[in-house]
């Protein structure tokens, strides 16, 4: 697997490709996000990330809005050659 350092999704910038490391949002939300395709190691592209307000990622071809509170609980790894 990837041995890149993990970072918070909030640090990702628009256009960046990341792979999902972990989500710490409680069982219910973890499971809901997993159903929407956000499972470990999935590759996501950041569509937009303003300093405040929700963030948008592209996961498996669909755009998903994540509230700011959510973003800080998601850890990702940078993917260089996506």
């Amino acid at each position, binding site marked *: 697997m990837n041995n890149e350092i993990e970072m918070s999704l909030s640090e990702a910038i628009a256009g960046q490709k990341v792979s999902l490391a972990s989500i710490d949002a409680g*069982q219910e*939300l973890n499971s*809901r996000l997993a159903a929407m395709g956000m499972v470990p190691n999935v590759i996501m592209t950041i569509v937009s990330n303003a300093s405040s307000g929700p963030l948008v990622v592209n996961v498996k071809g669909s755009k998903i*809005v*994540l509230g700011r509170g959510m973003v800080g609980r998601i850890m990702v790894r940078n993917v260089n050659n996506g």
Partner: protein
Amino acid sequence: MKKLNIAFAGNPNSGKTTLFNALTGARQHVGNYPGVTVEKKHGICKYKDYELNIVDLPGTYSLTAYSVEELVTRDYIIDERPDVVVDVIDSSNVERNLYMAVQLMEMNVPLVLAFNMSDIARQNGIIFDLKQLSLLLGVPIVMTVGNKSKGLDELLESIVSVSSNPPANTSDRIHYGSEIEEELQNIQRTLDGEHDLVEKYGKRFLALKLVEDDKEILAQGHTDKILGAVKTSRQHLRTIFGDLPDIIIAERRYGFISGACQESVKSTTELRHDISDMIDAVLTHRTIGLPIFIVLMYLVFQMTFFFGQYPMGWLESFFGWSARMITEFWPGSADSALLSLIVDGVISGVGGVVVFLPNILLLFFAISILEDSGYMARAAFIMDHIMHKIGLHGKSFIPMLIGFGCSVPAIMATRILENKRNRFTTIMVIPLMSCGARLPIYILLTGAFFANNKGLVMAIIYFTGILLAVVCAKLLRGTIFKGKTTPFVMELPPYRVPTMRGVLIHMWQKGWMYLRKAGTIILGISIILWAAATYPKPDESSLAGLSHEEAQNVQLKHSIIGRVGVGIEKVIKPIGFDWKIGTALVGAFAAKEVFVSQMGIVYSLGADTEASSEALQKRLQVDYTPLQGFCVMLFCLISMPCVATVAMTRHETGSWMWALFQVVFLTVLAYIVTLVVYQSATFMHIGV
């Protein structure tokens, strides 16, 4: 004719409802699933010798027990055992959509996959090897285009054929890897005693849900032995994988799907920048996104009220005409109680509600377009940052905005909110958005007391409502609707051109729901209020020699409403009101604008007094101070919502308790706010 029960399942935005509409047309019925406010739509479709009763299940991503929609979907499939389940899949987003299909396969239901919107997938350069994919999944696949009614016959043919020869068991198509499979085996072995549950769910599905820690399945009274085995398995898997077993299982499902798609779905163009991205670059832009949204909403309102005023006028004339006709051709005496019941109770009560129907239809016409095009999700996205500060989601903004038109459709529109606490909080504060029916009251009172600053005073009233809504939402979210602010997670669906059929069906369904309310609860309460304003009647002798207007005055004062108005004078005195205002306020419960006609009766000017009536405004100027006028507006803004709102709150929350809570909460709030304003302004000699 053979009858078949068919269920449509699928992700939100997969075009499921469009396909359902294309098959069933206008032959649809909307109801609710028992105990929840999830809409249940079903319709009939005839094909060859078959009559298909199709249920359009709520759009979901999964079949866990975490949301009402998912539970409703799962329970329906398990309890009703439809002959065939059709999973509608967005062909341009197959991987994510197949996640649901895989779970349906695990439930081992007779399944057909409808690869919908296949024209868009083709445009996007996606090529399917359907034969191969169908073989890998073990279920038939049909290509459809719901909004162009393409592939419908093929789909129906496939449904009919699956209903008579169900495919082989699909429950163990996915191999979860030796570690998980081993644990599933262990649990399955302990399940032998649970014949009923195994019969209902299937052994493998039951074991899988137990490993997934499914709260609903776990609560079905398993023996300690089974629960123990589940706990051991979960702990074991957790140690091996370092993550929750449910997440690992989700990952494996997606892995299976990726594998299947790798061999059968080819994308010929790499990473397209589609039209949706380009539209989003403008509509969700950081600086211009919000102004665009405000302009769009303004247009929706302008359109609603501009085009709505004509049919509204016709309906008003119609009800006025029928009241006159009935009175004129009434066979009995003109003082007949039955005539009064029909004309003043039924016609004016129901008429008062039905006249808003055109506005409601137009509003929902616009909302359906915004929703079906995909813009509504963007609006929620834009507003989320602001709404988050008061403990609500971006999506709450839309119903609150509709509240400026009328609270009733606003409360109906809260269905777009998934979270119950958010939804209830929004419902509670919606009446604080000053609705159109309160405008006549403001026109009357600003005209009487603030002739030079009408606009300013009205703006103050509107802003007070918004401010109070913000404060109350925050307060409610921090107290009775407390709970972790469920983080905002929402899909931004691709933009699509809404279909006329879909928009019209949606509009009609909302309008019908509103009318049904008018026909039942609102009619009942209107009759009660009519009786309270009519009885008991004063002696004939006391009316002798009085003009018609004076007689109306005496009658109202003598009635229950009049007596209540007088009775509450002590209570409302501290906020600057007398019995006349009290009486008008009680009457305004039927509909806010009734306040004006009640004031007309109190001043013996007759019930037909208009808000802009100079005579009434002059009388008010004599009896009251500008401060009292302002306090009445404030009280009307905040205090108890009208009958129709109460009925709708009851309907949408499923309990009279919440409807009553709303009435009491808002009335108490109104009293406190008005009291503070009146007493402090009196103390400081402002406006007296």
